[in-house]
């Protein structure tokens, strides 16, 4: 089998992103196909790396000539490979929807590639500082994407995002400083190896700093103030992209922090608490929401909470569940964000809109045979075998609330309103996403095997 260096996943789109203005100079029409081509190529790389990882185990790669722990290290673990594939698979699909747009902004395409590359970077990096840098690139790119609508709402949302993102990055830096101050290393393995030599106070402080910093990006409850505003302000496409890329990378970083980086006492309990709070507050806030993007944003918050709950169970089954939930959320939420532009219930008349939206909603609510079901099912099975009844009850209540507001929202109105509907390209994108949902749902065994590997690896302290 061909093996390719993982750094390509990052370097390739980064490089071509900066080439995009050149292409734009040559031909304005070529930018969109060019970007799509780059993204698709990246998908190919990601799938090759995924296959390599699932057959050959974790891939390490040093950059910049130094050996670890000083040099920068990329390490593609099982989970990293899954998420890298997920992000790189979905981002071209969401990009397809841009084809039907009359606007043709090279900046948008650039930022898009940039964020794709850096989100991928977060999930495959082996170095804390590297992760910080990728976080920042992701964040800067996302700010730009959110603001790209150039409306009042867009600027407002982007600004809130910038402020909270910057505060978050300051916290990450503080955390990095704390860790570096004691351990003189930023390599994940080194940190994990020697973390026990840190004084508990410092360890805890580092943990707190990092979880706050990453939590902003991962939409965890008290830190996610920007989420509804930024999603509401941004265009449907950007919201769709944000929910598949940056947020997944963020929750990955949280998992990394919890499992391998700084395993503190009570860390999982804290994560559980935060996850449940996020879940419940997100779902409840969505219940009376009138604006669709905002509702979907709240729903995203709830889903992230659920994923965090799954991670915090600290067991193999729940970890697998978390992976399925991430897949489900990435696919279904981007589908819903894309499909609900110009939404009225009348747009459901078109089967190419209604069927994908229907599938997306089902997957989010957790109906079989879609990935969301497998996630919730494994999570519940795991919690049931440990006897966490209260948590199951909360998760169940959240699911019911979810169903209620999705139903109330998506099917409101009389069905006679005229709607411009969505463009052909957007339709293509959501149909592909729906197909992917169906495929993953019907054949979970192909995800299950790598997911179990990822779980074992993470639970064993690996990447």
């Amino acid at each position: 089998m061909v093996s390719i260096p993982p750094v390509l996943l990052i370097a390739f789109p980064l490089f071509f992103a900066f080439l995009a203005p050149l292409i734009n100079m040559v031909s304005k029409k070529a930018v969109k196909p060019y970007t799509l081509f780059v993204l698709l190529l990246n998908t190919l790389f990601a799938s090759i790396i995924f296959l390599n990882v699932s057959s050959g185990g974790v891939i390490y790669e040093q950059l910049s000539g130094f050996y670890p722990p000083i040099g920068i290290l990329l390490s593609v673990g099982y989970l990293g490979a899954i998420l890298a594939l997920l992000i790189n698979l979905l981002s071209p699909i969401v990009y397809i929807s841009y084809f039907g747009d009359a606007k043709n902004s090279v900046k948008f395409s650039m930022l898009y590639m940039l964020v794709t590359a850096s989100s991928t970077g977060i999930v495959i990096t082996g170095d804390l500082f590297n992760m910080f840098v990728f976080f920042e690139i992701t964040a800067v790119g996302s700010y730009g994407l959110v603001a790209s609508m150039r409306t009042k709402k867009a600027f407002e949302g982007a600004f809130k995002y910038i402020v909270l993102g910057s505060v978050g990055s300051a916290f990450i830096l503080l955390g990095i400083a704390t860790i570096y101050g004691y351990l003189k290393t930023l390599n994940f393995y080194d940190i994990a190896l020697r973390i026990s030599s840190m004084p508990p106070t410092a360890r805890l402080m580092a943990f707190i700093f990092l979880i706050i910093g990453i939590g902003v990006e991962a939409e965890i409850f008290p830190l996610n103030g920007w989420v509804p505003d930024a999603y509401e302000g941004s265009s449907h496409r950007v919201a769709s992209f944000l929910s598949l890329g940056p947020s997944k990378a963020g929750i990955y970083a949280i998992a990394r922090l919890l499992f391998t980086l700084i395993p503190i006492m009570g860390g999982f309990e804290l994560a559980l608490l935060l996850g449940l709070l996020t879940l419940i507050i997100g779902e409840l806030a969505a219940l009376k929401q009138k604006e669709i993007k905002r509702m979907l944003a709240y729903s995203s918050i709830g889903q992230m909470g659920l994923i965090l709950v799954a991670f915090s169970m600290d067991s193999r089954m729940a970890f697998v569940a978390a992976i399925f939930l991430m897949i489900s959320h990435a696919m279904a939420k981007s589908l819903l964000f894309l499909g609900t532009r110009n939404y009225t219930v009348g747009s459901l008349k078109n089967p190419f809109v209604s069927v994908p939206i229907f599938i997306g909603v089902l997957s989010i609510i957790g109906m079989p045979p879609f990935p969301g079901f497998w996630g919730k099912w494994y999570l519940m099975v795991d919690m049931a075998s440990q006897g966490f009844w209260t948590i199951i009850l909360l998760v169940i209540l959240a699911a019911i609330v979810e169903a209620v507001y999705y139903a109330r929202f998506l099917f409101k109105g009389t069905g006679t309103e005229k709607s411009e509907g969505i463009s052909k390209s957007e339709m293509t994108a959501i149909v592909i996403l729906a197909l992917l949902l169906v495929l993953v749902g019907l054949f979970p065994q192909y995800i299950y095997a790598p997911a179990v590997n990822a779980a074992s690896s993470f639970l064993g302290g690996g990447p």
Partner: protein
Amino acid sequence: MTYELLEPIFIISTALIAIGLYGVMSKKNILKIILSLGLLDTGVNILIVAMGYIPGGTAPIENGNYSLYMDPVPQALVLTAIVIGVSVTALALAVAMGYYKKTGTIELDKEGVMKW
């Protein structure tokens, strides 16, 4: 390695962080918030640079004198962080301009904002 928290450099950086956070929390004016963010960044950066400081050390540049030099990694970190901070500030200012063009104000007013 020991840190003495009462060293002035830490006091300064902590103060800067605190001022920055206070500004972010209390101000409605976009420019003031951006300035506060800058302060926050600076505070953090100072803290990190201070961490790598060794009394009497030289800059971490290879010049044959290996005896005592600063830890290079924090400096690299800070350099990166500054760059990022600059770009974020630039972007924030651009957004502020856009906001101003759309609304004619740089106050994040209470009525017009997206909420709930």
